[in-house]
C-alpha cells in the first residue's frame, strides 16, 4: 500500500545521521574545504555508523538487509551535512556494492569481509575519465584479454583516495561493454597521478590514475567470465548521487529560508516579499519532488525492476534541479551568497558537479 513514512529503523538511522551532520560535519566542512583536508575523526565517526555492514547480508559477515531505499535516505542526510565528507565516508562502497550485486561467490567471499572491519578499508574505484566526451557506457580505457590475463590501458580521473588505495576497481571497455577489474596497488604500469583540482569537493582527495599495459589475472574481472551488467552498477551509483543531490539542494534551500526570515531590508524580512517567497516555494517543490524521483527508483530497484530508464529521467532532472536550487539559494543571500564566509557558494560549486560525478558514490 502506498506509504511514504519511514519505518522505525530508517527513522533511527536518519536521526543519527542528522546528528552527525549537524554536530560533526557542519562544524568542520568549511575548514576542510579551505584546507583540502577532512579531520580523520569525522570520517571515522561516519564509518563507525556502520552503514555498509548493515547493508551487507549475514552470509557475507554483515548483519543487515540490503535496501536501496534505506541507503538513499542515509545518503540524503549525509550529503545535507557535506558532500565531500560523505564521499570520503562512503568511498569503500564503490567497491563493496558492485561486489555485492555483481561479484562471483568467490569474489564476495574474498572482498566483502574487509568492509565489516571497524577500520575503513583502503579500496576505491575508478570510472570517470578526464575528457569531454566521457560516456560511462562507452569508455576509452580498454581491457583486452591476453591469455589468462587482461591488459588495461587508459586514464581515469576523480578517483577518491587513490594515493592510499590498496586495490582499485577499474572500469574499462571490453569489446564495447563496460566491465570492472580489480587492480592491486603497485601493479606494474599503474601510476597514481596528480591530485585533481576540482571546482568543488576540494576536501575530498581524488586523483587521476594512468594505466599503461597493466596486466592483471583474468579472475580479477568482476563477475567472472560473464562480467557485469554495467547498467545495474550505474543505476546504483546514480540513485546514490540523486539522493546526495537532494541533500545538497535541501541544504541550500533550508539555509535560504532561514536567511530570508532574518535578513531585514526596508524594515522587514525579505521573506515578506513575494519575489523571495515564491522563489523559496519553487525550491521546495523541486527538492520534495526530486526526493520522490529518488525514492521511486530506489523502491523499484529493491523490487528487482530494471530502472535504467527511470534513473536516466531522474538524473536528467536532478542534475539540473540541484544546480537550479543552489543558484536560487545563493541569489536569496545576495552578496553574502558570494562570500566564502557563508556556505551557499560551496553548495553551489558542488551542485554543478553532479552532472559529472558518476561512480563517485555508490549505494
Amino acid at each position, binding site marked *: *500500500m*502506498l*506509504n*511514504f*513514512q*519511514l*519505518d522505525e529503523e*530508517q527513522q533511527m538511522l536518519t536521526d543519527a545521521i542528522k546528528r552527525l551532520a549537524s554536530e560533526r560535519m557542519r562544524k568542520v566542512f568549511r575548514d576542510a574545504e579551505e584546507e583540502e583536508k577532512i579531520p580523520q575523526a569525522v570520517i571515522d565517526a561516519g564509518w563507525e555508523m556502520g552503514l555498509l555492514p548493515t547493508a551487507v547480508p549475514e552470509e557475507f559477515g554483515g548483519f543487515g538487509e540490503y535496501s536501496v*531505499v534505506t541507503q538513499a535516505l542515509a545518503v540524503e542526510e549525509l550529503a545535507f551535512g557535506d558532500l565531500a565528507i560523505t564521499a570520503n565516508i562512503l568511498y569503500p562502497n564503490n567497491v563493496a556494492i558492485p561486489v555485492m550485486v555483481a561479484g562471483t561467490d568467490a569474489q564476495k567471499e574474498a572482498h566483502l569481509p574487509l568492509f565489516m572491519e571497524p577500520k575503513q578499508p583502503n579500496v576505491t574505484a575508478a570510472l570517470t575519465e578526464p575528457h*569531454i*566526451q*566521457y*560516456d*560511462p*557506457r562507452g569508455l576509452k580505457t580498454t581491457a583486452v584479454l591476453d591469455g589468462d590475463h587482461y591488459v588495461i590501458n587508459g586514464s581515469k580521473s576523480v578517483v577518491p583516495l587513490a594515493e592510499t588505495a590498496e586495490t582499485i576497481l577499474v572500469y574499462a571497455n571490453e569489446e564495447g561493454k563496460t566491465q570492472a577489474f580489480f587492480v592491486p596497488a603497485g601493479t606494474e604500469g599503474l601510476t597514481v597521478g596528480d591530485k585533481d583540482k576540482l571546482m568543488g569537493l576540494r576536501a575530498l582527495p581524488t586523483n587521476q590514475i594512468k594505466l599503461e599495459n597493466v596486466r592483471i589475472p583474468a579472475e580479477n574481472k568482476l563477475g567472472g567470465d560473464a562480467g557485469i551488467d554495467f*547498467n545495474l552498477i550505474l543505476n546504483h551509483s546514480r540513485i546514490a548521487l540523486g539522493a546526495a543531490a537532494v541533500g545538497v539542494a535541501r541544504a541550500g534551500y533550508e539555509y535560504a*529560508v532561514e536567511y*530570508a*526570515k532574518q535578513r531585514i531590508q526596508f524594515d522587514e524580512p525579505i*521573506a*515578506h516579499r*513575494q519575489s523571495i*517567497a*515564491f522563489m*523559496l*516555494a*519553487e525550491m*521546495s*517543490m523541486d527538492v*520534495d*519532488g*526530486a526526493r*520522490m*524521483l529518488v*525514492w*521511486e527508483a530506489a*523502491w*523499484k530497484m529493491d523490487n528487482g525492476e530494471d530502472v*535504467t*530508464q527511470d534513473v*536516466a*529521467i*531522474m538524473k*536528467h*532532472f536532478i*542534475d539540473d534541479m540541484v544546480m537550479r536550487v543552489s543558484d536560487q539559494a545563493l541569489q536569496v543571500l545576495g552578496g553574502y551568497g558570494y562570500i566564502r564566509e557563508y556556505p551557499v557558494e560551496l553548495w553551489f560549486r558542488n551542485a554543478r558537479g553532479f*552532472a559529472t560525478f558518476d561512480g563517485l558514490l555508490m549505494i
Partner: protein
Amino acid sequence: MIDFTIPEKIENQVKMTEMVAKQVMRPKSRYLDEHEHERPDDFINMMWPVVREQNKATLDRAIARANGEGGTKVKTGPSTTILRLIMLVEMMSWGDTGQYLCIPGGGLGGFAVEAAGTPEQKEKFMRRFAEGDAPSFGAMAITEPDAGSDNSSMRTTSVLDEETNEWILNGEKIFITNGSLSLKESDGFCVVWATVDPNAGRKGIKSFVVEADTPGVDVSPGMDKLGIRTSDTVVLSFSDARIPYENMLGYSKVEKKKADKGFKGAMATFDASRPAVAASAVGIARAALEMTKELLAEEGIEVDYTKPKHQLTAVERDIMEMEAQYKMAWLLTLRAVEPMMYGKGNRLEASQNKAYAGTAVTKITQKAVELLGPLGYTRDILIEKFMRDAKINDIYEGTRQINLLIVARSILGYSRRELK
C-alpha cells in the same frame, strides 16, 4: 515503510476506466471540442450507473456507522478513497478532460457537503447521487466577477428572512463548472458560498445548498472557452432566491448548532480537490507525451536512455525533460494524497502538487505541439487540443500564484498578514 504499491483493486478499476477512455471518450474528443455546448451523453450515461452504485455503497456504509450498526466491523488501515479518486481522474483526463469534468455525481458540491455537512445534510443531499435512472450532478460556486483568487471579498449575500426562516440569496457567480447540469438539467444542487455579514470578511462567509429549479436562480448559457470546451461552465445569478434555513452547510436541527466551519470549510475541500486537479493535469500530460513519442517513433526518432546528456539530440533532451516533469507532477500527486490516506493534513503538499502539476502540463503540452511541427498545430490530431485543455490546470482550484503563496506561507511559517 516507503512503498509505491497501488492496491490491485484500484489497478483493476484503472484498467476498466482505460477502456472507457479509449472506447467512449477518445472517439468523441474532437467532435465535442468542435461542438462546444453539446453534452457528452455517451460518457455520462456510461458512468452514471458506476458512480451511482459506488455512491450508494459509500453512503449506506456511512449511515450504518452513524447508527452504530456494523460496529464490530470497524475498518482499520489507510483509506484508499482519495487514492482511487486521483488514479481514476488521471485516467479519465488522459481520455478527455472536458468529458471527465461532466462526470455525474456530487463533484465539488459533494466534496463540500462531505467536508462541512452534518450527517442529516449528507443523507438529504447526497442520496440523489446514489439512486435513480437519470444522472444527477453537484456543483460549487465560489468565484465572482470581482472575487477570483481573493474569494474572501465575495459580494453574494445571504440574508435571513426571520418570518419564513429562509435565506435570501442575491449576487452573481461565474465560471461555475457543471452549473447547468446540476441546476437545470438534473435534480442536483449547487453549493453556493455567500456572506451573511459583508462587514465580517471571511468570518461572515457560509455555504448554502441551492437545489435545482429554485426560483430566482438564473443559469446562463455555457461560456465559450479556450479548452475543456465540453465542460459545462456557466454564470449563476441570484435574485431573491429563497432557500430553507437548514440548507446552510453545517447547520444541525438536532443540535441547534449554527454553521461554524464557514470559510475554512471551503478551503478544506481544496485539500482534496487540488490533488484531483493535479491528477487531471498529469492525465493530459501523459496523453500528450505518449502521442508525441508515438508520432516521433513513426519517423524513427526514439529516445536513447543510455546516452550521456551531452550526446543527446535536442529532441531527445526535450522529451526527457517532458518525462521528468510529468513524473515529478505525478509523484507529487501521490505525495499529496498519501497523508490524507493516513488521516494527516496535506495543505502544503496539495498546493505544492497543484502548482507544480498545473505548470508542468502547460509546458509539456506546449512543447508537444512544437515538437510535432506543422502537424502538431493542426486540428487533425488531438495534440493542440491537449495544449488548450492543459492550461486550465494552471488556473482553476487556485491559480499557480495562489498555490505558491500557500506553499510560501507554509514553509516560512507566515500568516496572511506577513506574506500578502
